[in-house]
Each structure stands twice: as C-alpha cells, then as structure tokens.
C-alpha cells in the first residue's frame, strides 16, 4: 500500500465482469472496498473478502469516492447520485450512452465541485502508451493512416445484446478505439460507419462486426474495427499506425514475449476483456493514477471530456449507420439520436 493512499475506502458500485479486475487493483492498492450491487455483491464480497453496502446511499455515505462498474445504461443515474452525495466518481466506459447525458453529468459534477474520471483503460496499456509517446515525440512523423482493432468473444447473449442497455458493439467495445484514434491522431472531423449484420429492433446480432472510418483535423485518416466474435474467441486488439516517417504495429495475440502450449491445466484464454497481460495490470495503473489524483495528485491522463468525446463519436457512428451518410462532426448534433 502506498502512503498517499493510506486509509482509502472505495465504494464499488456493480459486481459484473470488469468489477473483478477493479477489485484486484483496489486490493493491490490496500483499499478497503465497500461493494454495492443489485446482483452479485454478496458472492463477490465472499470471494474477495469485501464488505457489502446494502444501499447505494449507505455506500456513498461511507466511501471516499466511488468506482462505477454497473451496466452502461445505469452509469448516468448512479453517477448523478454520487455527485449529489458529493462523492468523486471513477466511471467505467462508456461514460454514459449519449453525449448529451455525458455533458449533463459533467455539468452536474462541475456545479457540485466533484470530479469524474472515465475508465478508458486502454490509455494505460503499455503498448498503447508506447505508441502515443512515440507519436508525440515525432518518431513516425505526421500520422497518415491508422488502424485499430478489437475483438471479444461475443457477450451479446446477455444484457449487452440489448442496444438500449449496452449501446451495441460500437458503444461498448469500439469506444476504446474511438478514444485511441482521438488520442493518437487528434480531433475528428468526419465519421463513416457500417455494421454487419445490422441491429434489428434494438437487438444486436450475436456475432457482429463494425467498421468505422474517421477523418481527423490533422489530415490523418483512421479505421476502427470492432468484432463481437464467435463464443470462445480469444480477446484480441491491436493497431497499425503509419506516419510520414515510420510505422508502428502491435497485436495483443502475438507481441507479448510469452507463448505457452500446455496440454493440461493451462489457463483459458481471456474472452471478454484483456486481463491476462504480463507486468503490472493496466487496471491497477489506471486506478492508482485516478486515486492519487483524487487525493490531490496531478490530473490523470484521461478526463471526463475525453469520455464524452468518445461517446459522441460512437453516436455519430450510429447516425452514419442509420443514414448511410458521412457525419460531419463540426455540425453533428446527436440530440434525438436513439440511445
């Protein structure tokens, strides 16, 4: 436990997939964890030795700040409750399911003097940090054409399949790479998106791919490809970023420096989230940086407006899919776009 984080009590709201990774990180930081969830809080508390908060209000009252890892559609409501209670918030991506909601939450937080940090954890993965640093340092010149991809074993059999709750494959999975594209290539001026098979009556296909092409103010173009793949497919992500004087390439499947083939008792591949990285968990790096900032340290590398911008791009992608047209981000107003 670091001294700066001594005596920390975190309110963990939610007990789903990502909660397990956050619990491991908070425990590594020596925090006391109060978990509150509509489902699964007791099981999780038992598994990791946490304390259960029976009510959201109780959790907010006792915690120093909260870590919101609930299903996406509830982020807004839970975050607003935390703001009302005067608690700082770390919120899983997507910050909310619409940019309008993100801005409402950000405004409420500003009015209450509360901070919100969106958990865009890919900004903490060493391979992505290295590319960002190299680009900032001018190592590959001006970014020209960048490609990002991300594939997970499809979670669409559960609540993720309900687009009203998850936002679909773009809002849920690609939102990471929409944020990366902004981080690496700068502000976006145009968005074009296609998805196959299409979403029908608000239900995402079980296996589905979305391709989004972005044009950036810098002149760079980028492509984000997100796939909810056949059940059991290993999690994969990667990029290929070509600049005027060089190229940077990475794929999570190939570039770990560790390969194993175990006939018996080997660990199963990660399906939904890339938990199995070597070295320090990026979730730990992320939550430490957020916690230190909330204890008065320097601001973290990703802030609420970044989370809102990623949601805004995802909404533009959906509008492009619906209209079959390129969305001009200078004039795009997502108000009225279906959540």
């Amino acid at each position, binding site marked *: 436990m670091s001294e700066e984080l001594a005596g920390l009590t975190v309110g963990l709201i939610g007990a789903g997939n990502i909660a397990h990774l956050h619990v491991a990180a908070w425990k590594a930081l020596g925090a006391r964890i109060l978990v509150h969830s509509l489902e699964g809080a007791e099981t999780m508390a038992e598994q990791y030795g946490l304390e259960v908060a029976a009510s959201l209000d109780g959790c907010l009252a006792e915690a120093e700040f909260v870590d919101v890892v609930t299903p996406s559609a509830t982020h807004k409501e839970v975050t607003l409750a935390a703001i009302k209670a005067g608690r700082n918030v770390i919120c899983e991506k997507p910050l909310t399911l619409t940019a309008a909601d993100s801005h409402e939450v950000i405004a409420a937080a500003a009015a209450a003097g509360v901070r919100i940090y969106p958990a865009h954890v890919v900004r903490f993965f060493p391979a992505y940090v290295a590319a960002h640093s190299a680009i900032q340092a001018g190592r590959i010149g001006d*970014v020209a*054409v960048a490609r990002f991809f991300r594939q997970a074993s499809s979670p669409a059999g559960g609540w993720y399949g309900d687009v009203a709750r998850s936002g679909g494959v773009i809002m849920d999975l690609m939102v990471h790479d929409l944020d990366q594209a902004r981080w690496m290539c700068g502000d976006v001026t145009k968005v074009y998106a*296609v998805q196959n098979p299409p979403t029908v009556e608000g239900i995402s296909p079980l296996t589905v791919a979305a391709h989004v*092409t972005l044009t950036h103010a810098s002149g760079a173009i980028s492509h984000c490809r997100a796939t909810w793949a*056949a059940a059991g497919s290993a999690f994969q992500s990667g990029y290929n970023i070509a*600049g005027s004087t060089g190229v940077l390439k990475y794929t999570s499947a190939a570039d770990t420096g560790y390969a194993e083939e175990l006939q018996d008792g080997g660990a199963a591949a990660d399906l939904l989230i890339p938990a199995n990285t070597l070295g320090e968990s990026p979730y730990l790096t992320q939550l430490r940086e957020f916690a230190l900032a909330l204890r008065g340290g320097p601001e973290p590398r990703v802030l609420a407006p970044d989370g809102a911008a990623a949601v805004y791009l995802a909404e533009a992608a959906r509008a492009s899919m619906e209209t079959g047209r*390129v969305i001009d981000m200078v004039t795009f107003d997502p108000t009225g776009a279906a959540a």
Partner: protein
Amino acid sequence: MTLKVAIASFAHGHAMSYADLLNQLPDVEVLSADPDGASAPDPGPRGAELAAQLGVPYVDSYDELFAWGPDAVVVTSENALHRGLVERAAAAGAHVLCEKPLATEVEDGEAMLAACEAAGAILMVAYPVRFSPQYLRLRASVEAGLLGDVFAVLGTNNGKIPIGGRQWFTDPKLAGGGALVDHTVHCADLIDGLTGGAAPQRVYAAANRVLHQDKGVEVETGGLVTVNYDNGLLATIDCSWSVPDNGPTWGGVTLQVTGTNGSVEIEPFLPRINGTDPDGEVYLGIGENFDASMLATFLRAVRESGPAVAGQPPAAVPQPDGAVGVRTLRIVDAARRSATSGQPVDL
C-alpha cells in the same frame, strides 16, 4: 505443342518476373516488345536493353509483336494503356493475361471484356495472391463452412510507394490514381474469390496525401476503402503506400476473415527468414512463387482451349477472369469518386 507467348510492354515491373518465369518453361517461346520504354523517365533499363538482361527475344514495335502470331499475350503496360493492347491481342486471336488493375476506367474494362468475348479469347487478370497456399486454404475452409457465415473482412495491401523503378505509378492519367488504384484491387479480388463474385453495393473511401509529401506526387498515398456487398458482407481494405522507404521488404497482403464460427487471418508474403546483414534487418522470403502458379494456370487454359475461335467461348476459363477484373475495377472507380465527394457511392 510449343506456345508462342508475347510480352507487351515492360512498363510494369511484374513483366520482369513473368519474362524470367516464361523463359524457364519448356515448350514456351517468348517474344517481347517495349516500344514506349525508350521515352519513359525510369532510371533502370527498358526496351531492348532490359530484354537482353532478361534473356528474352525482343522486337521494336507492337506491329512486329502481333505479326509474330502469338498464342497468348501478357499485357504489362501502364494501367491506362491496357485496353489498346488487349483489344489488339483479341483482334489477333490471342489469349490474354492482363496485369492488374484491368483498366483505369470501368468503360475500358467492359470494352476489353467484350473484345475478348467476341474473339473467343481468354481474358485473365494477373492477381497472383489468389494462388498462394494461404489463400487456397482459407478459401477451402470458407467453402467447407468451417468459419460459419462470413460477415466481415479486413484486407490490407500496404507497400512502399512504387516510384523507384517506374515513374508512371504516380501519374494520375497513366495509373488512374494512386494507392486507391494500385492496392485496392488485390484484396478486392481475394474477397471476390471467397464470395463467388458478390457484387459491391456501396463503397466509401477516405484518402489523403500525408505520406510521401517529400516526393511531390500528385496522387493519394493513403486510403481506406469500405465496401458493402449484395450478400451483406462488410469489408474494409487499407490500400496505403505506408511501408516506409527504409522498410525491410516492399510490403505485403493480409486478409482477416471473420465468420459466425470463427476467423482466419492470412499473410501470404510472411514466411521468411529474419536476421541482420550490414545494411540492417534481413527479410528473406521463403514462400512459393505465386506468379509461377498463376502463369501455369493461364498457360494450361491456353493449351486446353487451343486457338481462339471468334464467337465461341474458350474451352477453359481460368480464374480470376475479366469479369472479376471489371467487378474489382468498379470498386476502385467508386472509391475514387467517394474520396472526391466525401460521401459513400452506391453502385
């Protein structure tokens, strides 16, 4: 039976590979002509000098080349000049292997297809990656249903900017454009082969000139082309000339194919030996020569078909044929228009 195979033009660098391979084949007689070579602004030798280096017989004019009575013609001129040579070959009753892309305009491609059809001649398009063992296995897996329903593809054909040896590749008229024209078609062809010729319905292309600004080229150097096909398939092709000038190899082709039951990714030019030499990183390709398989397929079909008979389809139609050439050209043409208009183009 000895086949007479003509090579029309050395404008495309692949002509050298084809000349070399044809030279090694028994029962094949080769004759070449490169009348425009002398005036080309290329640094290396062209015309008679290059033919001498390659060890292939040479004549000074296309008149002499076609008067020779070739059974087959390999057209390796600048893209925009394919049509004239293919029409001449068809008129001479010769079967044709045409370098990709088939043409720079859809209208030209359709005319070439019609000319060969009328002459009863084979028209095959030089898409050698189709003959790679990686692609053949992928296609067999797709056809056997191992991937389930294929719903998305990401293709990349990234390479160095092809101006070192041949200047016309960056001439908007002779090449028809830049990276969008040069590098979209290989992946489009591989996808065409997987779908059995699905028709492109909507094409969106974003392109820019951020790469190679120092070289003063007038064409796009980077591009991303997204295609929706009539069977629902979604594909994006990165056609950028994004391999740096100091890269260890010219570039490569990849195809990532996702189905409801799993995915396959191929990289046909990947098999290699790594290491270092005094110049830095070593990249020694150890794969098969796809050009050789492609030429063998073409020549087998030429032998099987015998002399072209006007109005009668050839006995053998080797793939990828002219129709694939036109379908892939439609994608390129739509991509060019989309990049200009900034909006997707419906076909």
